[in-house]
């Protein structure tokens, strides 16, 4: 079973490697959105430092949404999705592997470049650990929730915008808790409660989201 | 009785804009919904009966 999972993840990563430019696009988008804020608001370091947590989190949220609608669509075209549906493996597990691969491709680059952007905005260096921690816990939740939306809007006209409409309201708790972790750390308090809450949300999402994704895929394909 | 006169009632203790603004918009929104429901029903019944006169619901 684990071998099949590993091969599923391996396949997804291989496919992503073949489309390297997609991976770069999300990270680039993230950088550009963050750079727009100083341009729009002026270079006042005090202001930038204050809004940095929110800006980085909102930009990460938007960037992680970019590749969502491609999560299952190529599988639909080449018939892999139907194989997934009739395979003896539980669909929820296959889907979990797919989401994990998606996170490795789209989430991890965001986590990796976030510290650079944070320094650009003047965030104190000792907050970078909290930033990386909160993003590392938060972006998988975004991938899990986003995958539900991707499965529901599979093969629909106007899928991309619709997907954003469905998914963004559900992202709110992650945004609040994730940026809250940074804000409380910046105020000299412990960020631990926020990070624990994010962990709880991650576990919750990892347990329940795969079922919802699997159900949504069956509905969309049948 | 709370109100000395009708003018008093409509003035709402100086908050007429907010109180009547709330009630007017609520009434308008609800009436719109009811009207839309009736239009929707009339349209579908007309289609189902092939464009003849529609029996009053």
């Amino acid at each position, binding site marked *: 079973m684990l071998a099949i999972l590993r091969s599923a993840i391996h396949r997804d990563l291989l496919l992503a490697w073949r489309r390297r430019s997609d991976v770069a696009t999300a990270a680039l988008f993230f950088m550009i959105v963050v750079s727009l804020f100083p341009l729009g608001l002026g270079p006042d370091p005090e202001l930038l430092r204050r809004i940095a947590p929110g800006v980085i989190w909102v930009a990460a949220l938007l960037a992680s949404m970019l590749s969502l609608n491609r999560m299952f669509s190529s599988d639909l075209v080449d018939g892999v999705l139907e194989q997934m549906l009739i395979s003896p493996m539980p669909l929820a597990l296959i889907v979990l592997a797919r989401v994990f691969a998606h996170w490795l491709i789209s989430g991890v680059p965001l986590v990796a470049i976030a510290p650079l952007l944070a320094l650009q905005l003047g965030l104190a260096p000792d907050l970078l650990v909290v930033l990386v921690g909160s993003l590392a816990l938060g972006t998988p939740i975004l991938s899990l*929730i986003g995958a*539900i939306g991707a499965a*529901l*809007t599979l093969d*629909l*006209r*106007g*899928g991309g915008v*619709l997907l954003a*409409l*469905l998914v*963004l*309201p*559900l992202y*709110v*708790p992650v945004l*609040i*808790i994730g940026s*809250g972790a940074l*804000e*409380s750390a910046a105020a000299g308090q412990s960020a631990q409660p926020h990070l624990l809450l994010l962990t709880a*949300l991650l576990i919750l999402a990892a347990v*329940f989201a795969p079922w*919802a994704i699997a*159900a*949504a895929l069956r*509905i*969309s394909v*049948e | *009785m*709370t*109100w000395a006169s009708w003018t008093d*009632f409509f003035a*709402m*203790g*100086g*908050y007429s804009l*907010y*109180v009547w*603004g*709330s*009630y007017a*918009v*609520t009434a308008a*929104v*609800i009436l719109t*919904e*009811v009207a839309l*429901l009736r239009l*929707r*029903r009339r349209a*579908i*019944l007309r*289609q*189902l009966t092939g464009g003849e006169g529609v029996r009053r*619901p």
Partner: protein
Amino acid sequence: MNPPALALRRINWFHYASPQTFLPVAGTLVPWFAWAAAAFCAAGLYTGFFVAPTDHQQGEVYRIIFIHVPAAWMSMFIYLVMALWAGVGLAFNTRLSGMMASALAPTGALFTVIALWTGSMWGKPTWGAWWVWDARLTSELILLFLYFGFMALHAAIDDPRRADRAAAVLALVGVVNVPIIYFSVKWWNTLHQGASVGLTAAPAMAATMFAGMILMAFAAWMYTIAVSLHRVRSIIFERKRDADRTVQYAKGLRQ
């Protein structure tokens, strides 16, 4: 076994889940609920405007409560009921459940809009601003987005069965998220603003004020039932039309 229980058992509840049987039942129920809504509304408005006293802190502006609070209650309650129908539809594969869920969504969104509008109208004189990022207003706004998402997804899918089922999954995911959203927004609010001003009236609320609010809440209930039954009838008719068209099309193909 006592007779009522036996009789209850003999009724086949799934019988009423068929749209064709449901259609006339709903048709006879609609006027009753509509009149009940009108009666409760009249009683509630009378109590609210002529019986309930002036609030000694807020003055007359508190009278917005008679629509604001019932609308806010309904907006959340309708989402729950919608998710319940959605869950029933997914579990038992009944066609009517999905139709009920999609019939409720516009009314739920409408009450959310009313709650937001009246909240803002109340906020201006009380807080001095049309909009405050208060925990309740903010989560109500997100609830509105959830309703819009549900309706947009349903509208984007052509096949009604797929639309019902996909929207049902979204409603269930949403209903799991609503408490999480509410608590995170509340928490965010206390972090950023300290104690927030409550929109609900003073704790010592006169009994007549409460009575007016409850009467209006009943009116909103009856209105919701009447409107959603009326809408579900239209939906049943529309699906019948679409099915007929498909049959016509298939017949055309065979010739």
